[in-house]
């Protein structure tokens, strides 16, 4: 460890900074502070130094450069090290310039708005190219990748059964519990069955499934395609003549479109069972009565409302996921942000569409 043996300070003759031992990066902060504190003109005495690294040399060099300090007692090695660091004195900035003012903020807002527009147009364009992909597949059905689609069925559908089932079961219990507490105030606990039956088939079964699929599969689509973009797999595919839309996007879209109604039906069923368990244990309504009541209170159109929405949601989720994945370029950080965007975008679109569907079905009389 180095120690400063002497710091002579004299207003008339300036100051002498004498270092003994090692002048290395370990002591860089202290050395710099001590030199900064000395009055001009500074003389740096290196005669008692044992070891100097490039950082130590740099501190001496910059003191000479900025304050015209004098160096005495440097050996040949130290002189050559000082010369070497001097050769590399090319100031460079650490971070790119960023304007910080009102105009920049306005500019950012403008960019943000135009980004949204560009994304929406891009999504529309992507929708168009998938339609072209579908058309090509219909013209040449031989090119349809059955294995890829079946594999996606497994990943998107079969493997999601557990988590979606559990989630729906619990949601059924929560609706039954909350509903019965509120309805009990009017002495109308028996209507809990109407509540469970209609809300799960018409809305929650499909909506919660869509949110789960967006989180599970939409994000996976974006991450998979994004990674393939970075590793140039997609470029390789294109150059070989395989259309990435046909090979990667369409199997995923088909899987999501077909699996969503099945999963939604599964979710409705499990939510009804969850609600049934609760009303049986808590309100004492036996399962047989519960099923009978469900048949009476749920119009078949409620089931259609739920099941018609499901494939549309599946399509939106797969489209948004694949679209964001294909937008990845550059670094791995972008895969993460694109995946997040895919999930947010698809859940948002699903909820907007759900509202449109709600109005539509009410207006055609499926109340």
């Amino acid at each position, binding site marked *: 460890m180095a120690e400063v043996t002497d710091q002579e300070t004299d207003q008339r003759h300036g100051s002498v900074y004498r270092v003994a031992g090692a002048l290395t990066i370990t002591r860089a902060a202290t050395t710099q502070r001590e030199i900064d504190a000395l009055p001009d003109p500074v003389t740096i005495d290196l005669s008692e130094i044992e070891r100097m690294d490039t950082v130590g040399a*740099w501190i001496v060099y910059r003191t000479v450069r900025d304050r015209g300090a004098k160096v005495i007692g440097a050996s040949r090695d130290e002189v050559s*090290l000082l010369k070497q660091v001097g050769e*590399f004195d*090319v100031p460079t*900035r*650490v971070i790119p310039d960023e304007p910080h003012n009102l105009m920049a903020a306005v500019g950012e807002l403008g960019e943000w708005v135009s980004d949204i527009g560009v994304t929406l147009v891009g999504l529309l364009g992507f929708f168009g190219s998938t339609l072209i992909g579908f058309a090509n597949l219909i013209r040449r059905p031989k090119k349809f990748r059955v294995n890829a689609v079946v594999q996606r069925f497994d990943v998107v559908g079969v493997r999601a059964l557990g988590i979606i089932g559990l989630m729906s079961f619990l949601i059924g219990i929560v609706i039954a519990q909350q509903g019965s507490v509120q309805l009990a105030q009017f002495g109308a606990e028996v209507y809990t069955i109407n509540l469970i039956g209609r809300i799960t088939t018409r809305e929650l079964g499909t909506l919660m499934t869509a949110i789960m699929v967006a989180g599970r599969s939409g994000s996976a689509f974006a991450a998979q395609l994004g990674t393939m973009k970075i590793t140039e797999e997609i470029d390789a595919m294109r150059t070989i003549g395989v259309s990435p839309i046909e090979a990667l996007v369409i199997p995923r879209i088909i899987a999501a479109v077909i699996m969503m109604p099945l999963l939604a039906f599964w979710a409705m069923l499990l939510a009804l069972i969850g609600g049934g368990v609760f009303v049986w244990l808590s309100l004492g309504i036996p399962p047989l009565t519960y099923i009978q009541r469900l048949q009476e209170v749920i119009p078949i159109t409620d089931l259609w409302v739920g099941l018609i929405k499901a494939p549309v949601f599946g399509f939106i989720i797969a489209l948004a996921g694949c679209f964001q994945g294909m937008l990845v370029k550059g670094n791995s*950080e972008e895969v993460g942000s694109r995946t997040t965007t895919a999930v947010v975008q698809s859940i948002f679109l699903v909820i907007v569409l759900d509202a449109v569907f709600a109005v539509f079905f009410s207006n055609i009389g499926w109340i």
Partner: protein
Amino acid sequence: MSGLPKDCHPVITVRGLRNAFGEQLIHDGVDLTVCRGEILGVVGGSGTGKSVLLRSIIGLQTPESGQIEVLGENMVGRTEDEAKNIRRRWGILFQNGALFSTLTVAENVEVPIREYFPYIQPHLLDEIASYKIAMGGLPADAGPKYPSELSGGMVKRAGLARALALDPELLFLDEPTAGLDPIAAAAFDQLVKSLQERLDLTVFLITHDLDTLHAVCDRIAVLADKKVIAVGTIPELLALDHPWIQEYFNGPRGRAAAESYEEGAHA
């Protein structure tokens, strides 16, 4: 053949190293010594475990058995805290640069310095980063760029600048010239050689590049048959009668590299 140079102060000592992935045995009894101040090149066919050897030495891969000593400290079975002291004294250039993609080049160089010396004044830190970048052979405008904006050669130089950030005694380079054009590769070789001379570094260099072997390496270690079969200068290795070594250095590419090196030496 393991005749060490006479005045060898070992910086890295590997004894009886054994590495395996499941059933697949990678190393079985690797012995290797790297002396202070030399540039040791490690060669070997694909899949002979050059990178695994590097990862074992720097502690990213725990070997099944064997001893590894770096800068006088035992590397096997040590705690994170103990390892920190040694990590301060080496610099590593990974094969693909391994720059932190969310940081600029200059910030990348500052990472190790900030980690170990958090009290360095910010303006001094920026200046240190600047001259390390210049030392790595990058132009001044590379500092504020992000890794995704750099070419392959610049990524390697930026990685080298980061490896040099703490003034290491020991530098590990994993295929530094792979993926560079011949001009850039030759320039990188020169850079490594001159830095080694200026900063008195010990360099452990994995390479496939025959020109690099001729131009910068003091000794070369050959990995084959799961161990180091020979260590020595190129003439010493050529004197051996091992088929792989003969094919490697006397194949068409090997001879071309040797000739161009000799022409350069005579000129």
